[in-house]
């Protein structure tokens, strides 16, 4: 290599290193900034959040908030790493009160009761959500979005085959059998790319087949996951898999993801799909005609449960870092997100995102909101048939077991009984250690 080239290389090396050094303005966090990590469903949602909440807050606040955007699939792990290393942001995200409770028990987040008093959260937030967010009787996180699980279907496809949304197990099986005969996948499902999708299905099935009453008992330690109702529910899912009704069979289960299911509904190759109400937005985007998709409450999957059960879920829970130097500002930002129903509904209208668990009356909904969203959020408060979403109400390790071991149920490597055995063991450990949350009492139990 000749001299010129070598000199050039040396210069290049020095330049690159210099660039790296000088250009690393990085994001050094100054303590006067209030930091918040957010993750969004899509860039439009992020933009709406930025405008409505971040810019809106910064317009009036003394300490401005700086939002750093992460991805939904990595924000949990990033937050965990950051918290463990003492580098967490001021406002800490968790995907539900369950995960947030881990932080609280370890002393990484502060109790929020004084702020709850100051901002009146106890009165504004729905009681079940408020109670759920407590650890050791102190408020540890604030829920900022709540939703449920429903059954999605394609109106034209249903009309074409003469089906109506099922409300009982036998109706469900009739539609499923008819769909299978017509060459459709009767029930969408699968966990490709994100193993946690299994728990969407399990939440729906457990609530619709076992029922909220029994779930309450099991979550408070008065019943066991190995009881026959649970075995029956898991066996039901297994029967769907064996018949090829769920995702088209056990192998397809592992290679079908959420988008594929929604696309299947839109294309008319999948008949029904049980998923969360966060998917309203995706449905409208994927369907060519956004009016063509519809949701129905979950059918009852056994005689023990009334049709139309709504498992309640909290999608995001925010807490305040113990080491934060801006705790007051953090609390006021959180209040900005949940305290004002109109602002929250404006966000929902624009993005289809689930609103916070506030007491909202039908007339508060803005005109531009999708009718289906209004139906959902008026139906839930009016009904007493509400249940428990697993990622919200199950303690963390039990939930992790629920998801990770379910794969083996799908492949048939493990029996329903053995699976539930393990689930009960995992739950027992957390129950004995006192790391379970407070589920609301089902109606008719007071």
């Amino acid at each position, binding site marked *: *290599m000749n001299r010129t080239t*070598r000199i050039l290389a040396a210069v*290049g*090396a020095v330049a*690159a*290193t210099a*660039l*790296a*050094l000088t*250009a*690393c*303005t*990085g*994001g*050094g*966090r100054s303590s006067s900034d209030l930091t918040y990590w957010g993750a969004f*469903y*899509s*860039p439009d949602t992020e933009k709406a959040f930025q405008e409505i909440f971040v810019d809106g807050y910064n317009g009036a606040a003394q300490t401005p908030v700086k939002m*750093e*955007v992460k*991805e*939904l*699939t*990595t924000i949990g792990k*990033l937050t965990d*790493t*950051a918290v*463990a*290393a*003492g*580098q967490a942001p001021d406002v800490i995200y968790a995907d539900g009160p369950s995960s947030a409770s881990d932080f609280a028990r370890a002393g990484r987040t502060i109790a929020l009761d004084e702020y709850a008093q100051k901002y009146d959260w106890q009165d504004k937030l729905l009681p079940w959500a408020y109670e759920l967010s407590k650890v050791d009787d102190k408020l540890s996180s604030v829920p900022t979005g709540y939703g449920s699980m429903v059954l999605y279907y394609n109106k034209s496809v249903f009309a074409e085959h003469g089906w109506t949304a099922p409300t009982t197990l036998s109706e469900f099986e009739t539609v499923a059998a008819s769909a299978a005969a017509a060459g459709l996948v009767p029930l969408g499902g699968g966990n490709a*790319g*994100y193993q*946690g*999708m299994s728990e969407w299905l399990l939440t729906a099935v457990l609530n619709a087949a076992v029922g909220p009453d029994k779930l309450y008992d099991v979550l408070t330690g008065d019943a066991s996951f190995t009881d026959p109702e649970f075995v029956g529910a898991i066996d039901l899912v297994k029967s769907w898999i064996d018949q090829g009704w769920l995702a088209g069979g056990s192998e397809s289960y592992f290679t079908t*993801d*959420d*988008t*594929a299911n929604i*696309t*299947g509904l*839109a*294309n008319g190759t999948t008949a029904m799909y049980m998923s969360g109400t*966060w*998917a309203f937005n*995706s449905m409208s985007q*994927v369907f060519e005609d956004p009016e063509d998709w519809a949701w129905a409450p979950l059918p009852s999957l056994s005689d023990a449960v009334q049709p139309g059960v709504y498992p309640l879920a909290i999608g995001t829970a925010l807490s305040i870092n113990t080491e934060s130097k801006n705790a007051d500002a953090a609390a006021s930002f959180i209040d900005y997100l949940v305290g004002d129903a109109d602002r929250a509904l404006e966000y929902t209208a624009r993005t289809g995102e689930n609103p916070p668990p506030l007491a909202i009356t039908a007339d508060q909904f803005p005109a531009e909101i999708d009718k289906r969203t209004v139906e959902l959020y008026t139906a839930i408060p009016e009904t007493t048939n509400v249940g428990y979403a697993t990622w919200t109400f199950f303690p963390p390790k039990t939930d992790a077991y629920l998801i990770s071991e379910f794969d083996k149920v799908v492949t048939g490597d493990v029996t329903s009984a053995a699976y539930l055995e393990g689930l009960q063991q995992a739950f027992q450990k957390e129950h004995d250690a006192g790391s379970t949350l407070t589920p609301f009492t089902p109606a008719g139990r007071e």
Partner: protein
Amino acid sequence: MSTAMPAVAPARRTRRRPRLITWLIVGLLSVYAVGPLFVFASNSLKSSREIASNPIGLPQNWNWENFVTAWEQARMGGALLNSAIIAVATAVGVALIASMAAYAMTRLDLPAKGGWILWLLVSSSLPLQLFLVPLVAWWSFLGLYNERIGLIIIYWAVFSPFATLLIRSFLVSLPVEFEEAARLDGAGELRLFFRVIVPMIWPGILTAALVAGLQAYNEFMLAVTFLQDRDAMPASLSVYAFQQGFTTDWSLVSAAGLIMAIPVVIVFLLLQRKFIEGYASGGLAN
């Protein structure tokens, strides 16, 4: 994949053309290597819905706007610049660190040679996932957390062991006469290193630098943990910006991936000449 070589042919003249079977095998390997890239290119032009129903065929409509969308949504302009800075700084740093260390291990009197190899290999066999927490804490203490140079230093540490051992394997087969002579001639060690050794193993150093730069360019886990600021993020994180909730928009991922890959291929093509020049004119012809 197995290859069966034909039996030895009768003696030929010195300059012979490659056999047909050589071309055949090379051709097959090319199809294997390049074929999927057509799937890649055509997927970048499909709409997200179309990928689900038509995974590997040609696109129905050629959605060139995917590239524009991907560019904007993932802020690829800034991201590519960041990637370039990080990759080049890593490559240069690793080349220097590794070649110096490899030289010390083979030619200079470094004690316990086997021990160094053991240490290098074992330290490159520690799974990175576990480092994240102690390293983040450590890096924040040093003020290197969320700084580009912080990530670069981590890359130097992570990619140097392999590079060192690679360059070492090249050095080991070099005869010692040249340096001995130069040393006797009174050359200083540094001068000896840069003027005599480096040119001799230049292809090896270039390969090691290229590999390190490439690994840094594509690396994800450390980048996502140690760079929080969106403006400092490299392109490898950008492809993760196309998540629609819990699933990915594969058409945009393909488009972004193509945008990411093209600069590297171009750089590689340009460097090809250097490789060949290094062999052709120099080497160890006695």
